C-alpha cells in the first residue's frame, strides 16, 4: 500500500470519527440549549399564570392559544414540585400530534389547589435541530470528499519528486556515465533526499571509475617491466655459451612473462568492455568469420586429430569486429584446448543461435561458476578470464550465452538478438 493511501486511510478515519463525534456533541448541545429555551418560556408562562391568579384570585380561562395549551386540574396536594417533561402536543389547526414540551406547577387560589400544565409545541426547535444536523452532515460529506480528492491529487503531486528520485535510483547503473539529475521541488525533505542521492551516486560512480582507472593504469604500468624482462631475456639468449638447461629455464621465464602479459591484456579488455569503449560497430557475417577462424585454427585442429563438423547459414550481426573476433576465438580456442585426442567439434549456426559443441572431459563443467573471473578447470592452463570476457561481450550486446552438457558433448550456445 502506498504511503499516500496509508495517510489517506488514517486521515479519513480520523476526520470521519471527529466529525461524527463533534456532530453528536453539537446535536446534544443544541438540543440542550433549545430545551432550556423552551423551559424558560414555560417558566415564564407559569409565572404569568401565578401572577394572574394572585391578582385576580381566580383561575384564568383555559384559553387555547396557537402555541400553548393550558389546563388546570384540581388537586388535594399541598406540595408539588414544578417539573418539566416531554409531552405530545395536539395541534388543533393541523389536527395532528406533534412533539411538545410541558410544565406542570401548583397554583393556589381561594384555598383550592390546582396543578397547571402548559404544553408548548417543540416542532420549531425540532425543525431547527434537523436543519442543523443536515447542514452538519452535508458539511461532513463535503469535507470528506475534499479530503479524499486533496489526498489523491495534491498529495500525489506533492510526492511526485519522490517518485522521480526513486525512479532514478532504480535506473542507476554504476557503470553508466549518465548522472542522477536534480529534481525540482519545494519540499525540504525531498531536496535533502535528492541531494543525498546525487552525492551518493556521484561518490559511487567516481569510486567505481577510480577503481577501473586504477585497474587500467596498474595493468599498463605492468607492461613496461614486462617489456624489460622480455627484452633482457632476448639479449641474454644471444650468449650462446649458456647451457641447454639454462636456456630451458629462460624459456620458462619467457612463458611466465607471456602469461602475465596475456593476463594483463585480458584484464584490460574486460575494463574496456565494461566501459563500452569499443564502439566501432559494423555489420558482420558470422558465417564468414567462423570459416576464417576455422582456417586459422586448422593446424591445431589437425594436430589434435579433431573432426570438425560445420553447419552454417548466413547470419549478420552488428558488433565490434574486434570483440566479435575475441568471442569466436575464445569459443574455438576452448573447444580445441579442452578437447580429447582424437575428438570432435560441431559448430552449428542457425537462425540467431550459434552452437559450439566439443568432446572433452567426461564430466560437465560447473554451470554457475564457469563464467566467473579466474574460474579454471582442473586441467586448464589459461588465464581464467576467457569465459568471463565472453560473458561480458555477450552482455554488452545483449546476447545470451549458455553452457550445457549433453551426450558427452560440452556445448556453448550464443543466442544473438533477432535483427529488427
Amino acid at each position: 500500500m502506498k504511503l499516500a493511501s496509508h495517510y489517506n486511510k488514517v486521515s479519513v478515519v480520523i476526520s470521519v470519527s471527529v466529525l461524527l463525534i463533534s456532530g453528536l456533541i453539537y446535536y446534544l448541545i443544541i438540543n440542550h440549549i433549545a430545551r432550556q429555551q423552551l423551559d424558560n418560556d414555560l417558566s415564564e408562562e407559569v409565572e404569568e399564570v401565578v401572577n394572574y391568579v394572585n391578582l385576580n384570585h381566580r383561575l384564568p380561562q383555559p384559553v387555547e392559544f396557537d402555541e400553548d395549551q393550558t389546563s388546570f386540574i384540581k388537586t388535594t396536594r399541598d406540595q408539588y414540585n414544578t417539573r418539566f417533561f416531554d409531552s405530545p402536543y395536539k395541534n388543533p389547526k393541523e389536527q395532528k400530534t406533534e412533539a411538545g414540551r410541558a410544565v406542570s406547577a401548583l397554583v393556589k387560589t381561594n384555598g383550592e389547589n390546582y396543578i397547571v400544565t402548559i404544553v408548548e409545541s417543540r416542532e420549531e426547535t425540532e425543525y431547527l435541530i434537523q436543519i442543523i444536523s443536515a447542514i452538519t452532515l452535508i458539511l461532513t460529506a463535503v469535507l470528506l470528499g475534499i479530503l479524499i480528492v486533496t489526498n489523491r491529487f495534491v498529495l500525489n503531486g506533492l510526492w511526485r519528486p519522490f517518485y522521480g528520485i526513486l525512479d532514478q535510483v532504480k535506473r542507476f547503473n554504476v557503470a553508466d556515465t549518465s548522472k542522477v539529475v536534480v529534481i525540482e521541488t519545494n519540499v525540504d525533505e525531498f531536496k535533502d533526499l535528492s541531494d543525498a542521492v546525487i552525492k551518493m551516486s556521484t561518490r559511487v560512480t567516481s569510486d567505481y571509475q577510480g577503481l577501473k582507472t586504477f585497474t587500467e593504469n596498474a595493468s599498463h604500468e605492468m607492461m613496461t617491466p614486462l617489456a624489460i624482462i622480455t627484452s633482457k631475456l632476448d639479449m641474454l639468449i644471444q650468449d650462446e655459451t649458456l647451457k641447454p638447461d639454462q636456456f630451458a629455464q629462460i624459456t620458462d621465464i619467457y612463458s611466465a612473462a607471456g602469461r602475465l602479459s596475456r593476463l594483463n591484456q585480458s584484464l584490460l579488455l574486460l575494463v574496456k568492455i565494461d566501459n563500452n569503449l569499443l564502439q566501432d560497430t559494423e555489420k558482420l557475417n558470422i558465417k564468414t568469420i567462423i570459416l576464417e577462424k576455422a582456417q586459422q585454427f586448422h593446424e591445431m585442429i589437425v594436430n589434435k586429430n579433431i573432426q570438425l563438423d560445420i553447419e552454417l547459414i548466413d547470419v549478420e550481426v552488428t558488433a565490434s569486429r574486434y570483440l566479435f573476433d575475441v568471442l569466436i576465438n575464445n569459443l574455438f580456442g576452448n573447444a580445441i584446448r579442452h578437447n580429447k585426442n582424437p575428438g570432435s567439434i560441431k559448430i552449428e549456426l542457425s537462425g540467431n543461435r550459434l552452437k559450439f559443441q566439443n568432446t572433452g572431459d567426461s564430466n560437465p563443467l560447473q554451470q554457475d561458476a564457469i563464467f566467473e573471473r579466474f574460474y579454471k578447470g582442473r586441467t586448464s592452463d589459461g588465464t581464467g578470464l576467457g569465459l568471463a570476457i565472453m560473458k561480458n561481450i555477450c552482455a554488452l550486446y545483449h546476447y545470451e550465452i549458455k553452457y550445457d552438457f549433453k551426450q558427452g558433448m560440452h556445448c556453448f550456445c550464443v543466442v544473438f538478438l533477432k535483427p529488427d
Partner: protein
Amino acid sequence: MKLLIVEDEQTLRDTIEKYFTEEGSICEVAGDLKTALKKIAVYEYDCILLDIGLPDGDGFAILEYLRTSGKNECVLIISARNSLDDKIKGLNVGADDYITKPFHLAELKARLLAIVRRKTFGSNSLLNYNEISIDLLGRTVTVNDKPMTLTKKEYDMLLYFIANKGKVISKNAIAEHLWGDEMDMLDSFDFIYTHIKNLRKKLMELSGKDFFATIYGIGYKFV
C-alpha cells in the same frame, strides 16, 4: 640505417639500442620529448622508435612535429596501451606501425625493417640475402634463381629470420610472431619445429646450405 629510440625507461632503451646496433646501423637515443624534438630537428633518421608515454609530454607531439615540418621519417610507436583509440589516433597522425609492450626484440626489429622497406621501396621491391632473393610485392622467393614454394607461415618466418639474422630467437618469440593472440592455445612448440623443419629442408634443397642453427632449449638462429 639511422635510428632514433625515444623511450623514457632507461633499461629498455639501452637494451633496444644494444640489439639494434650492428654493422651499418647507428642508434641514437632520447629519454624525453624535449631531447627527441631537438634531435629530430637537427638530424635525419630512417626510423624513429617512439614510446607514447614520455615524462614531459605525449609522444604524439613528435608525430605532429614531423607532419607539420614535412619530414618523412618512419615512426614505429611503442606503447603500453593497446587501446584501439590510441592506435587509430597514432596511425592517423603519421605513425607507420604500432607495437604493444611487452614485445620481443626480434618482433620489434622485423616490424621496423618492414616499415622502412615499405617506405624506401621505390621500384625495387627485392630483398636479397646471400642466395635468397625475395620479391616483397609479389611475395615470391627464389634461391640461386630457382623458385621456392613456401606456405604463408614459412614465408613470414623467413622474413622474420632474415630481419633478425645472426640473432638467437626464442621459440616464444617465433610463436608470438606467427600466431599472435592465439599463442596461448599452443600447448607445445611442436608447430614451430615442424615449420622450421620444412623451411630448412626447402632452403637446403635449393642452396645446399643449412641456414638454421638450433640452439638447444631455447630456439633458433639464422645465419
